[in-house]
């Protein structure tokens, strides 16, 4: 667990700078295919992962880089994976965050949204059968929460009373589709009632509130209380992917959310409480920049996997 505010602040900044580096590498043509950022989502990603133990299972979504980092993933592995290089955790067989690291109990997302929810439920089921005292936590967006697997997975976790927590990252947009065209429910956490489980909507820009809500849900799951649904309300501050300029988002809406930036929020609080000073902040920023530069350099120096490997490894 890493819930000290200063550490949360550090991880949120690290996540944001990593996202910035990923975007830059994509625009330089070094990251191929696509690039997804979690700008604006850092509090949800970092706050939720911060209450997990090493034995807990993390099933993040594509804007949860902060969660990977809190769980212990190295920058080197993250950039190797994004760049599709030979020594990445997937051997270059998949890109973006679609990797798994069983040692850290991180199981990355796939492109089919909500498809990993039943899988995460399965990990929770295994944990329960084996009396592991471990919890599985997964994420889904406001759009993805409308896919059938969301319903089937959460319902199964509820009826089997599994140690599972599902966080809906309601960032107002699913690609170009605003929340008003995704669902008619007033609040997505209201769906919890349909499954007989607790549901709560929280301010996703407040990392401490996120951590508090997740801690309650995770501890309840650990004690055998079954799953919970948390709706974390934020804003997607950039396009769906690097190739989406998101011109459909009203600038006024972005401006309104910019004032609630999760990192700025915590920073103001930490400065006011003298937990953070200007020097410390500068030092942190320099350290982050240097760590990212080093990791990117190492990753770029790594070769692509050899063509001869393409046909291998279909079966165990």
């Amino acid at each position, binding site marked *: 667990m890493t819930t000290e505010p200063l550490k949360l602040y550090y991880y949120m900044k690290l996540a944001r700078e990593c996202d910035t580096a990923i975007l830059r590498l994509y625009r330089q043509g070094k990251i191929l295919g696509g690039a997804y950022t979690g700008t604006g989502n850092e509090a949800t990603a970092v706050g939720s992962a911060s209450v997990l133990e090493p034995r807990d299972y993390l099933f993040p979504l594509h804007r949860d880089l902060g969660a990977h980092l809190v769980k212990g993933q190295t920058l080197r592995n993250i950039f190797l994976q994004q760049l599709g290089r030979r020594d990445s955790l997937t051997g270059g067989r998949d890109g973006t965050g679609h990797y798994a690291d069983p040692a850290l109990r991180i199981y990355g997302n796939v492109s089919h949204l909500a498809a990993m929810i*039943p899988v995460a*439920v399965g*990990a929770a089921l295994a944990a329960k059968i084996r009396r592991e005292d471990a919890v599985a936590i997964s994420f889904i967006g406001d759009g993805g929460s409308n896919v059938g697997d969301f319903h089937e997975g959460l319902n199964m976790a509820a009826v089997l009373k599994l140690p599972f927590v599902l966080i809906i990252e309601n960032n107002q947009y699913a690609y170009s589709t605003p929340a008003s065209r995704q669902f008619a429910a007033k609040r997505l956490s209201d769906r919890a009632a349909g499954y007989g489980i607790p549901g709560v909507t929280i301010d996703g820009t407040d990392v401490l509130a996120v951590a508090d809500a997740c801690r309650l849900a995770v501890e309840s799951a650990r004690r055998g209380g079954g799953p919970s649904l948390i709706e974390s309300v934020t804003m997607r501050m950039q396009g769906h992917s690097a190739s989406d300029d998101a011109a459909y988002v009203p600038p006024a809406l972005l401006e309104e959310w910019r004032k609630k930036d999760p990192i700025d929020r915590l920073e103001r609080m930490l400065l006011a409480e003298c937990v953070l000073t200007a020097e410390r902040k500068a030092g942190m920023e320099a350290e982050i920049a240097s760590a990212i530069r080093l990791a990117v350099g190492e990753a770029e120096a790594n070769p692509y996997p050899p063509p001869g490997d393409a046909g291998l*490894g279909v079966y*165990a």
Partner: protein
Amino acid sequence: MEQPGEGFDLHGYGNARRIPAIPDCCRIAEYEKEAMAVLTYLEAISRALWEEMERDPAVFLLGEDIGEYGGAFKVTRGFLQHFGEERVIDTPLSEAAIVGAATGAAIVGMRPVVEMQFADFVSCAFNQLVTNSAKIHYRWHLPVPMVVRLPAGGNIHGGPYHSANPEGWFLNVPGLKIVAPATPYDAKGLMKSAIRDDNPVLYLEYKYLYRRIKEEVPDADFVVPLGKGEVRRTGDDLVVFTYGPTVHTALEAAAVLSREDGVEVRVVDLRTLAPLDTQLILSSVRETGKVLILHEATLTGGIGGEIAALITEHAFQYLDAPIRRIGSLDTPVPFAPTLEEAFLPNLSRVVEAIRGLSRA
């Protein structure tokens, strides 16, 4: 291997309307002394599941109605009482969640065996199988040791939604294995292999065969390897490649051809559809020169096309005639018995095709 009529109880096989009820499997004392039992196809599957669950605590079952009810076909009757509710899980009606949860449990070290109540309903879990189960090992180097049991096939008045032969849907998805036993012995041995395999295995169990065939099956712990076919009947004039219920049709047809035409047909039971036993397929072609591929799945897009292409690519010079395929008609499975009889590859169609091929 046994000839048709020896070791197989084929009462009424070939005409679903006239099948008499067969008596419960008789466990004769002599068999038990020899550490064998006469088991129906269904009992063999049951026995394999039971033994594997005793052998490995990581093996557990999930599915609809499998616990209290013992399963729609009673394959898992008695399991809940013996193994407990943590290892025999009655799930909600949610095929995608069932298969997805099995995948999740498998990647963190369990060995789940899923039951889809009917093979037809695996379509509801298609996304989980092709997006997650099939692709995880290639991308993550993590084994996905799960089995999905699929009560498959028609000839049981099931109509379009209880008669599926879904293997064709999955053949083009690298990462899945597919097995299709035709005998009680193989049903037991292949189930054990499937459970012990570290990959996702689709296990086709044929409803038509469940209680219609029985044979001596050793009590001992034996496995039938994946990826290996079996020659059910020797013969050098012609080879029939087939699997599942049509193995028995092919054996009946071979008996007719031998008796009436003096033609000796080799019947090869493929047993595993993915990966195919290409070595056995090609050597059989080299040794016979005439090929019929027979399956109950509908013709177009069925595995017959894949096998035919394999043969023309690698053994063309050994062919004395074009390869023939027989499958069910390219329609949804009809309900009325007259329609389904026309739909399925029945004995006369197979005899006629073999006869034609033998004279080509």
